[in-house]
């Protein structure tokens, strides 16, 4: 392998700013880094000093894509700290919201960030020119998640009614029926999505690693569950600090995280590898039709796992609607705090398991907050995969290797939530 250098400043089509640096000399990798700035540490400081009932609305603003997920982890941590156990109906409605968000987040990632690689275009914009129906379909499916959020949680994004103890407003049966109808109407678009992504062949890359995801009895866990590892351990969310450890690495502003092995993966592929037996029938059938058998050891199949999860969440959401509609006569009452203490919550957001941990003082104010995001947990694993990929592609042109590395990083769907979106203008 000859020597070469790759220096990608700001990888395109990932959420936030990521740089890739690779330096190979005489066939030896001398330097290989993925640099992604991790911002939520500052967010923890913002929570400190706030009353417990402010945390959910602040966390809902972290991100426009996984606002429901951040809100869920936040209220689960709060409820643990407040001694609140939500009722079953509240859990059903929360799961329905999560399904809607997961569908829209995965769909946008697959269509807007992943598909352009396979159509050999730089972004979704030329794709919109050559394949407008594909992009319009993505926008319709994206809207589905927003509509569900608006009907059930009061706003299209950044929900306002999802709180510790329950919902500020419980939806009417006709509103749940409307959600069900929106879901049913989306089926042809989802079928077309399956047909499209079936034709996209993921690059080959095999590397064994540890997978970490939540596990709950009788379901494919998104809402919450115990922390499960492919290496065998299952413990409650409150043990997260015993299960994972963060370490500072010299080349990255973000800490690296390890569990039992040197690195681990979270996200759709990890969830699927741990919970695949609990997939709903359509999702399970498509996975089989694709000829894939878990565990999926190719990181590029995180994209495929997202596709499968879209179908699962679709089926699950309809089931949640039916279960909620069957609870005739249910009257929703917010549960109130019984104590102020410390609590931890874990929820599966589109990009993997998210932990929130709050300590409350005697007045119910947050004195300490900790938040561990999925992308931070994946960093060490992405770098390990990059090493394998660079070795596997030895002898290929640096541009080709660079493209492979960028596609690999994108497959993990990394995200930082501090990205600004200024309108950049030049007056003429």
């Amino acid at each position, binding site marked *: 392998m000859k020597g070469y250098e790759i220096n990608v400043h700001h990888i*395109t089509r990932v959420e936030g700013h990521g740089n890739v640096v690779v330096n190979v000399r005489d066939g030896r990798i001398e330097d290989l880094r993925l640099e992604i700035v991790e911002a939520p540490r500052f967010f923890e400081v913002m929570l400190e000093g706030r009353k417990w009932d402010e945390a959910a609305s602040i966390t809902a603003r972290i991100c426009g894509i996984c606002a429901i997920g951040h809100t869920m982890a936040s209220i689960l941590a709060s409820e643990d700290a407040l001694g609140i156990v939500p009722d079953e109906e509240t859990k059903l409605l929360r799961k329905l919201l999560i399904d809607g968000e997961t569908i829209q987040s995965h769909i946008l990632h697959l269509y807007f960030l992943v598909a352009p690689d396979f159509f050999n275009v730089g972004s*979704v*914009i030329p794709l919109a020119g050559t394949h407008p129906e594909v992009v319009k379909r993505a926008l319709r499916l994206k809207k589905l998640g927003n509509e569900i959020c608006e009907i059930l949680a009061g706003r299209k994004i950044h929900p306002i009614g999802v709180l510790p103890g329950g919902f500020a407003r419980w939806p009417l049966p006709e509103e749940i029926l409307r959600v069900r109808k929106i879901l049913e109407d989306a089926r042809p678009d989802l079928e077309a999505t399956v047909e499209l992504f079936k034709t996209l062949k993921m690059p080959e890359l095999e590397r064994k690693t540890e997978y970490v995801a939540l596990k709950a009895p009788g379901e494919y866990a998104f809402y919450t569950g115990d922390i499960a590892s492919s290496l065998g351990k299952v413990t409650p969310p409150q043990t997260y600090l015993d299960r994972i450890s963060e370490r500072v690495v010299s080349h990255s502003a973000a800490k690296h995280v390890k569990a039992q092995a040197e690195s681990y993966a979270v996200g759709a592929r990890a969830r699927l590898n741990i919970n695949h037996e609990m997939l709903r029938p359509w999702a399970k059938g498509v996975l089989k039709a694709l000829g894939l058998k878990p565990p999926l050891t190719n990181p590029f199949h995180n994209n495929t796992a997202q596709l499968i999860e879209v179908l699962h969440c679709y089926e699950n959401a309809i089931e949640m609607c039916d279960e909620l509609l069957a609870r005739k006569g249910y009257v929703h009452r917010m549960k109130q705090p019984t104590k102020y203490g410390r609590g931890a919550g874990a929820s599966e957001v589109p990009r993997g398991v998210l932990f929130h941990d709050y300590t409350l003082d005697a007045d119910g104010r947050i004195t300490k907050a900790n938040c561990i995001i999925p992308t931070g947990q994946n960093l060490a694993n992405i770098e390990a995969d990059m090493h394998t990929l660079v070795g596997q592609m030895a002898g290929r042109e640096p541009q080709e290797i660079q493209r492979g590395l960028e596609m690999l990083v994108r497959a993990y769907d990394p995200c930082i939530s501090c990205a600004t*979106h200024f*309108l950049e203008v*030049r*007056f003429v």
Partner: protein
Amino acid sequence: MVDRTRDDGARSSKTLVLGIGNLLLGDEGFGIHAVRRLRDEGLPDGVDLEDGGTGGVDLLDRMAGYGRVVLIDAIRVGRDSAPVSAEAGFGDRGSRAVGGAASEGDRPRAPAPGDVVVFRLNTVELENPDPRFSLHETSLGGLLRLAASLRIQLPEIDVVGFVPAAIAWSDALSPLGSAAIEVALARVRELLAGRV
């Protein structure tokens, strides 16, 4: 599913005031703070108000069905930008013009942090309109190009832009941002009344 992203031909007469931004990043949340104030103070009949947050590509859907949108957002002005008529807010002391035709004495200059600038979107060059198109970082320029590729007719968009003074993790505006809110709200009302 009804496709509301399609081109419906004739423009609607409805107007939307849309504030966007990240409420947790100081002045980046200027548009959201402005929407909250407008919600408290009320708007003329027939004008809708929305807090667009960091909705990214959702904005296309938000704007669908409107003939006109007044967009309130933080703006970043290109280094070689031409001088414009801009305003800086001074809280209780009102506002003053700091350049352009409206100024008296001050030389026109490029907008600076703390300024409020009003312009029609199609009169400016949008910088960096595409290459880093992603879900959170969706630039409005990228969205406009996407809409054009999909032949989606967008409303006329007037921008009440604020040049941020402080971007940091905070859900409060900087002192310059707080002062500029009054100017921005006045400009929004003037736009709605057809006086700009």
